[in-house]
C-alpha cells in the first residue's frame, strides 16, 4: 500500500498529485504525509523480545550464582499445576528435606495459589499480572529478589555457588495459558509443560509452539484415563512430532501415581546443574 494515499502502489506512481507537505511546529501535524523521497530510513534491527532476553539472561546468571535451579511450569488453566506443586512439596519433604524450595505463582488475579503453596509448606510469592497473559523476566527477577532463596546462598553474580551450600529449587508457575508464555524466557533451566488428560490428546498439534519450547511434558490426571477419550500414545507421538527431544512423564498429582519418577527427574536435574 502506498504511504501517501493508500492506493496500493509502493512508489510515486499513485493516482494523486505528488506534492505533499508536512508542517511541524505548527500545532498538530498536518494529516498529509510526505512523499517517499522526503523520507529517510532509520535502521533499527532489534529483536522485539531482546529486552526480555537480557533480563532472562540476568536471571539465569543470578539463579546460578545462588545455586538455584528454576523450572517454568506451563499449561492451560486447570491442568493441575498447583496441585502438582503441592504434591511435589510433600514428596520432596520426604525425599530431600534439606532442599530449600520456593514457588513464584503467576496468575492474573488473587493470591489463592500462593496461599495453597504456603499451606503445603513452601515459600511462595504471588505475581498478579492484571490483564497480562504471561510472566516476563522482569516480573520473575523482581519476585526472586523478595524470596528467601535469594539469600540462602548469597554468592552473587559471577561467583559460582560454593559446593558446601545446599542447592535450591525454584518453581515458576506461569499464568495458565498454552499460547503466550511459550515466547518469554524467564531464565529457567527448563520449561515443563503440563497437560491433563481431560484436555484432549490433540493439544500438542493445536499449540505446537508451547510443546516445541518445553523440555518435559507431564501428562497429569492419568487416574481419569478410564473416563475420558485420551490416547496417551497418540498424544506423545504428536508431541514428539513437534519436539523429538521432548521427555514425557505420566502421573496423577492427586492420587500420587508417578510422583516418585517426577521427583527423580527434578533431583537428577539438580545433580546435572551442579555438575555443569
Amino acid at each position, binding site marked *: *500500500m502506498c*504511504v501517501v494515499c493508500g492506493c496500493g502502489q509502493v512508489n510515486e506512481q499513485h493516482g494523486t498529485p505528488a506534492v505533499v507537505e*508536512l508542517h*511541524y511546529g505548527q500545532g498538530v*501535524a498536518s494529516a498529509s*504525509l*510526505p512523499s*517517499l523521497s*522526503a*523520507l*529517510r*530510513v*532509520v*535502521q*533499527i*534491527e*532489534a*529483536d*522485539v*523480545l531482546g*529486552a*526480555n532476553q537480557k533480563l532472562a539472561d540476568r536471571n539465569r546468571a543470578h539463579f546460578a550464582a545462588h545455586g538455584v535451579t528454576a523450572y517454568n511450569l506451563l499449561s492451560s488453566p486447570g491442568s493441575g499445576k498447583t496441585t502438582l506443586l503441592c504434591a511435589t512439596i510433600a514428596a520432596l519433604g520426604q525425599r530431600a528435606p534439606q532442599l530449600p524450595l520456593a514457588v513464584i505463582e503467576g496468575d492474573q488475579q488473587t493470591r489463592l495459589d500462593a496461599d495453597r503453596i504456603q499451606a503445603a509448606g513452601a515459600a511462595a510469592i504471588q505475581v498478579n499480572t492484571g490483564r*497480562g*497473559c*504471561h510472566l*516476563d523476566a522482569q516480573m520473575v527477577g523482581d519476585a526472586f529478589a523478595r524470596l528467601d532463596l535469594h539469600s540462602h546462598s548469597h554468592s552473587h553474580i559471577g561467583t559460582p555457588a560454593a559446593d558446601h551450600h545446599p542447592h535450591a529449587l525454584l518453581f515458576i508457575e506461569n499464568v495458565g495459558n498454552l*499460547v*503466550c508464555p*511459550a*515466547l518469554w524466557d524467564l531464565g529457567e533451566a527448563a520449561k515443563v509443560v503440563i497437560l491433563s488428560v481431560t484436555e484432549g490428546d490433540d493439544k*500438542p*498439534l493445536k499449540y*505446537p*509452539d508451547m510443546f*516445541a519450547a518445553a523440555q518435559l511434558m507431564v501428562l497429569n490426571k492419568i487416574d481419569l484415563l478410564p473416563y475420558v477419550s485420551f490416547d496417551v500414545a497418540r498424544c506423545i507421538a504428536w508431541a*514428539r*512430532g*513437534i*519436539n*523429538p527431544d521432548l521427555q514425557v512423564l505420566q502421573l496423577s498429582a492427586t492420587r500420587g501415581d508417578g510422583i516418585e519418577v517426577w521427583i527423580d527427574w527434578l533431583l537428577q536435574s539438580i545433580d546435572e546443574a551442579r555438575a555443569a
Partner: protein
Amino acid sequence: MHELSLAAEILRIVQDAAARDGFRQVALLRLEAGALCGVEVDALRFALSAIAQGTCLAGARIDIEQPPGRAWCIECAAEVEIFSRADPCPQCGAVPLRPCGGHALRVLDLLVP
C-alpha cells in the same frame, strides 16, 4: 493475546529510536515476523494500531515481512519450508523436522520525515 505486550515492546523500541534520532513521526514501520515466531500477524497489527494513538507511530503504515519457517528434514537430507511447527516435510511427509529458521520477530527499520 501476547501480541499486545509485543506491540508495547515495539512501540518502546521505536520511541527509544525517536529519542536518539529526534524524529517525531513515523511514516513506515517495517517488521519481520517469521512463520515460527509464535505471533498472529493480524492481532499484532490490531494491537499496534490500538496503542499508536498519541504516539509517534500514530498514522504510520506498518509492513510486516513474513518469511516462511525453515526446517531440516533428516529423510530428505534437505532444508525445507514450513509454516507451522506441526507441519510435516512438504517433500516426503516425514515428521519430526528440525526447525532452523523463521523464528525472528524483529523491528527492521523505519521511514521518518
